[in-house]
């Protein structure tokens, strides 16, 4: 990856981190409602993964979707405006934190029912295959989603029909507060791909370049027509499951230890060591990200609420 692209990934990761930190503040201030799930600690996963896609490759994920939205190219203004429920939000204030999507950028949501996006991903891959397009559908889900029926039906169908899907498990070790070892028959999630005759790999999700390199190969292999594959990306969320998480299920020391493997810090070291950036250059990017978030807050605060007379719009594509 060239220098500029590497620095762009760094910018995306920092932008996500700052967005999430400010998002938490806005949530505490009552300016963001509903449920909100922060991506802090997991930034390298979607950043590396989505950097590896081509424009024709579709991305679909679960409810922890702010980072994915940024990586797919949605302007942070429209992401934050959606969190604040504004008419200028990417989903016009209809979806909120868990339901970001942008069809023009091939990002298909933001799905809040655990595992429900997997059968849909199989369907999107079927759509591309049926039409003879060479797009790959990249479907992200947490390790918690691998215990629900959706996962098994979707993986099976994708293999039976040789669909161009890359199944990406973001293993952050906890499904809400239940550790993977307490919820899943096998804690190494990639083993589940074996049951569907599917190739699989595990990769360090705190290392953005490792994610990128592995994902690039996996996506191109799927594109070649060899059928679905699975990636298990090992990561950790530094914050609670959602904003209302008392975190009784894990020790502070465990979180501290993982924070020692901060994907942003790790990438900083990599960039400087490989002479792709200077400490000062990275500081400039940090400053730019802070400024962009500040502008997004101003944009969102100034944006109008959706007009009440739009309540019934788009219940159906064809209005009665």
């Amino acid at each position, binding site marked *: 990856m060239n220098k500029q692209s590497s620095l762009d990934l760094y910018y995306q990761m920092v932008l996500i981190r700052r967005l999430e930190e400010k998002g938490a503040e806005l949530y505490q201030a009552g300016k963001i409602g509903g449920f909100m799930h922060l991506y802090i600690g997991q930034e390298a996963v979607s950043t590396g993964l989505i950097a590896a896609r081509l424009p024709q490759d579709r991305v679909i994920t679960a409810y922890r979707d702010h980072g994915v939205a940024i990586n797919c190219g949605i302007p942070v203004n429209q992401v934050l405006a959606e969190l604040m429920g504004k008419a200028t*939000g*990417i*989903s*016009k*204030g*209809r*979806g909120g934190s868990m*339901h970001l*999507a*942008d*069809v023009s950028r091939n990002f*298909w*949501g*933001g*799905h809040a*029912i655990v595992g*429900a996006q*997997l*059968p*849909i*991903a*199989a*369907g*999107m*891959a*079927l*759509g*591309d295959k*049926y*039409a003879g397009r060479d797009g790959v559908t990249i479907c992200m889900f947490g390790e918690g989603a691998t215990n629900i*029926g*959706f996962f098994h*039906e*979707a993986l*099976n*169908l994708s293999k*039976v*029909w040789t669909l161009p899907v890359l199944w990406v498990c973001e293993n952050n070790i906890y499904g809400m507060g239940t550790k993977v070892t307490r919820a899943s028959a096998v804690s190494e999630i990639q083993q589940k791909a074996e049951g569907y005759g599917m190739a699989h790999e595990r990769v360090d999700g705190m290392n953005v370049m490792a994610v990128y390199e592995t994902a690039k190969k996996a996506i191109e292999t799927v594109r070649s027509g060899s059928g679905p594959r699975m990636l298990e990306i090992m990561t950790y969320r530094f914050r609670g499951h959602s904003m209302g998480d008392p975190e009784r299920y894990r020790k502070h020391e465990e979180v501290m230890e993982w924070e020692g493997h901060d994907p942003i810090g790790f990438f900083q070291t990599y960039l400087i060591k490989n002479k792709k950036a200077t400490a000062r250059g990275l500081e400039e990017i940090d400053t730019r990200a802070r400024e962009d978030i500040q502008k997004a807050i101003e944009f969102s605060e100034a944006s109008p609420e959706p007009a009440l007379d739009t309540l019934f*719009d*788009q*219940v*159906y*594509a*064809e209005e*009665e």
Partner: protein
Amino acid sequence: MARITMREAISQAMWEEMERDPNVFILGEEVGIWGGSYAVTKGFYDHFGAERVRDTPIAETAIVGAAIGSAMTGLRPIAELMTINFAFSAMDQIVNEAAKLHYMFGGQFMLPLVIRAVSGGGRQLGATHSQTPDVVFAHFPGLKVISPGTPADAKGLLKAAIRSNDPVLFIEHATLYQVRGEVPEGEYVLPIGKSCIQRKGKDVTIVTYSKGLDISMKAAEELSKEGIEAEIVDLRTLRPLDTNPVIESFKKTNRAVIVEEGWKSYGVGAEVTSRIYEQAFNYADAPVIRVAQKEVPLPYNRALEQSALPQPADVVAAVREVL
């Protein structure tokens, strides 16, 4: 016009739409090589091929999910669920996904998909295979729910459903497949969400749909022998529900009976009765009466099962009560 069965009318609608639009395809359990468990897709696999007539695993969530996802990419899938009872296995995909995605993402996603499902009791299949839970699905804004009572309506409404850009649940009653009727050949598309008068009358309004139409027509013939002329309104679409013809008819007859095969509580009868009282209370000369299924899981034994299902005699009795 040819006189064909409901099964043939449904089959014809799909065949014509698949010939017209290469984006239309069928997926479901045994729709291909087998020819459909109710033989609706017989001959499709040989003619259209395995890509467009796709046999699936027995996995309703995957079937509906694949329909949703492929519809989002621009295809027009027709997902067949062997019976509507199996739709419960796919409930999340139908209710939380298909019905919500267009609205929830600010109109970004289009979901031009049809889910065909066989509903209804009366064939001694036991409680899990005999339900008529049509209203359950009609409860959700975002879905369109159609259930025709005649072969012509089945053809015209299924073609409309396939061309619709919204998710449509198309419910076929299992005991209506052999019913015959005049069906226009070729291009015949009816508007979704329009009720119609299936029988003219002046003495009482019977409001019904699907299998209830068959029952109500038989009852109307009986009543006619006594000089009582029932007007029958066929809802045809449960969501969006068009009660305008119901209200108009009620203002003329001042008496109504609502007939449905599903359970009475929270049913079509409850909804339509409320609308009559809300919009035409002053026209009522008698309380509106509902004829529906007894509130039990349907038993296997033939006599028990039939005693739980609404019969023409029940409709006749209800009409006598409101007159």
